[in-house]
């Protein structure tokens, strides 16, 4: 019998297993003993009964003994800023692909417990995505690499410094010949300074950057359009019509956070005229789910659509007249043509407020076309500025050059700080083999991953919350990274790694950073250094937008070279970054693995997404195992039917099929896409073959039912029908006839409002909730049994009759805190009761686990601890817990509390000052994280509270109002703004 204590707790164990069966199978009884293994006579029926009786007796007696001893360890010298019991907040940042997001991190007595957005940061303005928030769990991951290693042997940092110094001497004599640095794309002024110094010392050394999700084509496009490297800075606050060409700008991914807040305001009909969004894409993305009109195209057709659109605009915009030949050249099929006509007309009509936004996967020519259109239409939403990254080319092109040099034996010393190029590089580069041939290689990494296995020296990296550094945000603002905890393991920062080759391995990153900024800003350093660190950034350092001239001739020439005909028939592969693990670097974070993909709701793996019609044509069904082949060995994938997906193509996401020894959590989850990825076509390519291999895979989707069954669950309407909808919704709010006397709730009356029109479905709130409320992760097998523990889920419903291109609505749903709560009536032990302020409280200690409450909950927001998910956490992992929230044991029910710990903290804080809690003083975790400000919480008794205003809005309705539960969470119907011409 497996001990129940060791049941699946994701991310916590060394051994990963798929299910209870596999777990229960004792390894001793495996094949070596044959099928008829003798029974283990040590455990007879009698001894089991004896143990059972003894443990029952002991458990009973255990409660009778005295409570356990506890210790108090005060500081010896208390740091003046620390008040034990009261958390502190520090501004810092984390970088993904080189660009920083400003963070505000909560620390309890020196241990970070929650990551939030820095509200003062000019680039992200307090918004934060799921990836940044989940960094917290990675800090405490016990699987992190802990010591320096050389070819599998544990070594010290000093050993490495000696080896590096010896190597550096030899290399210096050769003026740096054969010295190569493969860096994470970066924008850090400190790293730039170190690179300069390294180049001075080793003139023949070369630097290159690598990211599996590079911005190379963006920069190439700018090169084509302007003759220089530029990046687009979005300002959606003035947007009226936006066309997204495969750009996922509403997904809370790196670079989109500020755009989301601006966009949300443009989708709120009470805040002025609504903007309109068109999306052209292959796979359904978060942005596509929000689009008023969406066109599905095969991946290789998207840029042809853009060129055809430019041809249409040529007739309407004098500045684009020269592109008229494009309309002749690129003919669109009827559906696309109609779409393009309408978009072109709309873009011109909204000139000044129109924007064409292109995704990083699209070819350079399409980026150039977008620049041409945005400039010609004088778009106020798009400005171009110099890129913040050191290198504009971080893609397969530069990596191919490097691996050729490596194979030719011209690289003697290779220092890698980029994330895992062996795993992420396209298969045809064969980077892993080339790396093995480098005599002296150094790799800095958080985990013992695929690259670490092939590198000579492996240096444990410092987590961002442990390190000093700087970086530029997406708008160029200089942002500081400061540690909240001293390093848990013997890690080093990127700056320290580089300094080792300058003979300065003993200089800490802090010293280097301080000295750099002292020399950069000698006048104001002494006065402002503390302020910069406290703010987290230096204000006014954003790069200025420029207005370079568009080189129309070159764009036209490049456009005319694009093959005019439509893509060839046959299947295409479409490779996309993953919403949860990005390029795989977040793979070992269980919070993200269990976060349902915002679109497909798949957890713990990637899958081959296929449109239902294409699947039917190929004879495939949900969960079937297939082999995807493209010029190489096949990838083994399970099929997931994806409504809204383009026909005749298969989408797979990056970041799975990991094989590193040190990352047990994500090892062997999903499948690797590198065999489908080639350096000439890193994102999409024709010629895909899909072969049935037989068998079915278990896919853990958190939502398998996609219809609202005709009820009003997630209300959606159009701006034209707004008034009628308000009248219709009136039936779904207000008080119902009741025989009970109403409660008065004289003090605070807490309530929430969720604006579905603002919500983009990005799922940032889910991670915030998990981090705030100590919610355990349960593993794939348990998710498949619907036992996930998320208090907050984002439901996604498809609407309309067209399964090919349906409408999508989504709805964040957590406990709605009914005033007449069905759960409370059925609890036999009073474990769920009502507070005097209207909160539906859950008392864990009273709960005996009957689960009646969950059965009677019409919203299905209650979660049951089937197992003790947290009992085998190591001490390091326990440090991630929020000390203000109880860690629940097995056998109790739990659910959203409206972040009652935050309410109580605010209550005590304000009572100490003899005043009431002001509106906006209590933010629930989900509200705080939401980049779109879709969730509002507050006191409904306060007539000036924002939440009260929303509760009185015309669009407000109550979920399942007819049941008379009187939920405290109100929803505001989503409003779409479709183009009448396309209706």
């Amino acid at each position, binding site marked *: 019998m497996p001990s129940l204590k060791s049941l699946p707790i994701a991310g916590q164990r060394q051994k990963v297993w798929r299910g209870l069966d596999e777990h229960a199978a004792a390894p001793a009884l495996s094949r070596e003993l044959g099928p008829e293994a003798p029974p283990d006579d040590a455990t007879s029926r009698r001894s089991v009964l004896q143990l059972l009786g003894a443990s029952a007796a002991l458990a009973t007696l255990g409660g009778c003994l005295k409570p356990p001893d506890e210790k108090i360890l*005060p500081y010896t010298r208390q740091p003046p800023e620390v008040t034990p019991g009261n958390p502190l907040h520090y501004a810092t940042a984390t970088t993904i692909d080189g660009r920083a997001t400003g963070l505000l991190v909560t620390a309890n007595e020196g241990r970070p417990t929650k990551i939030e957005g820095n509200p003062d940061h000019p680039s992200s303005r307090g918004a934060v995505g799921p990836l940044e928030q989940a960094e917290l769990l990675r800090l405490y991951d016990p699987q992190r690499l802990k010591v320096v290693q050389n070819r599998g042997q544990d070594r010290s940092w000093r050993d490495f410094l000696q080896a590096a110094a010896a190597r550096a001497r030899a290399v210096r004599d050769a003026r740096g010949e054969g010295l190569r640095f493969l860096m994470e794309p970066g924008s850090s002024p400190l790293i730039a300074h170190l690179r300069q110094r390294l180049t001075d010392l080793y003139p023949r050394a070369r630097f290159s950057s690598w990211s599996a999700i590079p911005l190379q084509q963006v920069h190439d496009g700018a090169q084509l359009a302007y003759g220089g490297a530029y990046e687009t800075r979005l300002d959606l606050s003035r947007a009226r019509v936006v066309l997204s060409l495969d750009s996922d700008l509403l997904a809370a991914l790196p670079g989109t956070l500020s755009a989301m807040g601006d966009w949300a305001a443009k989708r709120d009909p009470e805040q002025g005229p609504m903007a309109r969004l068109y999306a052209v894409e292959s796979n359904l993305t978060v942005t596509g789910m929000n689009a008023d009109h969406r066109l599905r195209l095969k991946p290789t057709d998207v840029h042809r659509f853009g060129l055809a659109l430019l041809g249409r605009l040529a007739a309407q915009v004098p500045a684009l007249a020269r592109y008229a030949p494009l309309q002749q050249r690129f003919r669109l099929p009827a559906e696309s043509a109609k779409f393009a006509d309408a978009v072109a007309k709309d873009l011109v009509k909204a000139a000044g407020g129109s924007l064409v936004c292109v995704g990083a996967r699209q070819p350079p020519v399409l980026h150039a076309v977008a620049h041409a259109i945005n400039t010609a239409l004088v778009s106020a939403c798009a400005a171009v500025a110099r890129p913040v990254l050191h290198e504009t080319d971080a893609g397969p092109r530069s990596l191919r050059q490097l691996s050729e040099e490596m194979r030719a034996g011209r690289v003697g010393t290779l220092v890698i700080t980029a994330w895992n190029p062996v795993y992420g590089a396209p298969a045809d580069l064969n980077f892993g083999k080339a790396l093995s041939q480098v005599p002296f290689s150094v790799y800095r990494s958080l985990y013992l991953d695929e690259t670490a296995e092939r590198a000579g020296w492996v240096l444990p990296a410092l987590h961002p919350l442990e390190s000093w550094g700087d970086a530029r945000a997406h708008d160029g603002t200089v942002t500081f990274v400061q540690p909240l905890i001293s390093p848990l393991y013997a890690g080093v920062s990127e700056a320290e790694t580089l300094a080792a080759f300058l003979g300065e391995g003993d200089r800490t990153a802090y010293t280097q950073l301080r000295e750099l900024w002292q020399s950069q800003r000698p006048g104001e350093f002494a006065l402002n250094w503390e302020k910069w660190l406290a703010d987290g950034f230096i204000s006014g350092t954003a790069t200025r937008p420029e207005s370079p001239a568009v080189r129309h001739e070159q764009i036209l020439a490049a456009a005319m070279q694009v093959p005019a005909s439509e893509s060839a028939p046959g299947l295409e592969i479409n490779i996309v970054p993953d919403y949860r693990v990005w390029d795989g670097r977040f793979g070992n974070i269980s919070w993200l693995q269990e976060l349902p993909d915002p679109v497909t709701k798949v957890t713990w793996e990637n899958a081959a997404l296929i449109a239902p019609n294409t699947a039917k044509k190929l004879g495939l069904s949900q969960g079937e195992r297939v082999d995807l082949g493209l010029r190489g060995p096949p990838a083994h994938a399970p099929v997931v039917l994806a409504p809204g997906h383009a026909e005749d193509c298969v989408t797979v996401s990056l970041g799975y099929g990991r094989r590193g020894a040190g990352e047990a959590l994500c090892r062997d989850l999903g499948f690797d896409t590198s065999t489908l990825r080639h350096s000439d076509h890193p994102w999409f390519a024709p010629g895909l073959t899909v072969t049935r291999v037989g068998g079915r895979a278990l896919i853990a989707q958190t939502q398998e039912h996609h219809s609202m069954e005709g009820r009003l669950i997630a209300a959606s309407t159009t701006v034209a029908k707004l008034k009628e909808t308000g009248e219709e919704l009136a039936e779904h709010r207000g008080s119902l006839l009741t025989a009970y006397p109403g409660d008065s709730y004289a*003090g605070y009356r807490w309530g929430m409002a969720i604006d579905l029109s603002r919500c983009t479905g990005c799922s940032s709130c889910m991670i915030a909730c998990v981090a705030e409320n100590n919610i355990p992760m349960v593993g794939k097998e348990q998710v498949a049994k619907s036992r996930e523990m998320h208090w907050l889920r984002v439901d996604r419903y498809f609407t309309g009759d067209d399964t090919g291109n349906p409408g999508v609505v989504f709805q964040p749903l957590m406990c709605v805190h009914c005033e007449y709560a069905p759960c409370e009536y059925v609890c036999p032990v009073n474990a769920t009761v009502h507070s005097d302020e209207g909160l539906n409280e859950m008392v*864990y200690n009273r709960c005996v686990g009957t689960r009646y409450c969950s059965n009677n909950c019409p919203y299905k927001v209650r979660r049951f601890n089937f197992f003790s998910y947290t009992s085998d956490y190591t001490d390091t992992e326990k440090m991630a817990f929020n000390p203000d929230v109880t860690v629940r044991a097995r056998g109790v029910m739990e659910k959203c509390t409206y972040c009652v*710990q935050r309410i*109580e903290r605010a209550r005590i804080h304000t009572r100490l000052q003899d005043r009431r809690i002001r509106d906006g003083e209590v933010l629930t975790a989900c509200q705080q994280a939401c980049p779109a400000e879709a969730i509002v919480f507050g006191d409904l008794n306060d007539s000036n509270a924002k939440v009260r205003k929303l509760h009185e809005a015309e669009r407000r309705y109550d979920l399942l109002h007819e049941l008379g539960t009187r939920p405290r969470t109100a929803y505001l119907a989503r409003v779409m703004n479709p183009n009448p011409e396309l209706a």
Partner: protein
Amino acid sequence: MSSLFKPSSNTAFRIALFALALLFGGGLIAGPMIYVRTPFYTQQQDPVDQPVQFDHRHHVGDEGIDCRYCHYLVEKSPAAGVPPTSLCLNCHEQIWNKSPKLAPVRESYFADRPIVWNKVNKLPHFVYFNHSIHVKQGVGCVTCHGRVDEMAQVEKAQPLTMGWCLECHRQPERYLRPRDQVTSMTYKPKSDQLAIGRELKEQYHVETRTSCTTCHR
């Protein structure tokens, strides 16, 4: 010969058996419930050994040091705070700086290693007690911690069970005192406690909060 037991004795026996079972069963439930409320289980009046023989009688009683000199977080934090070692040395740098009894304190300070105190007033981990708000609302230290100035070794003065907490949370007027008397060890209400308590409750806007989430989250 008539039988020794009448037929009705069967019934009596059954009733007795049933009553016995009921008593035993009831005892099985009631017994532990009573037991966990005994001072033996709650560890009241049970002096706790500490690594340093700190005598509150001397510091509080003789020297008259205010509670808040050492437990200085009590007005701003959930925890009253056991003082950092450096705070002990504020005085003991000058006086008794050679005393062998203070050796662990000096050792802690110079080795930068905390003194490991044994907790006296333990609350279960699902209870979120906040000192600052209680002190602010006029709950005296003595009310929960007893006459610490008379304790050679600190001991738990009150049971700290939920029922005990609720006595005050339901009727705070029975215990409230003026804010300036909170740390007084010898405060006695001038007149009727209930009258003063009601007045203070009004004056300090004390709420009688008994919702579960007031203390359990």
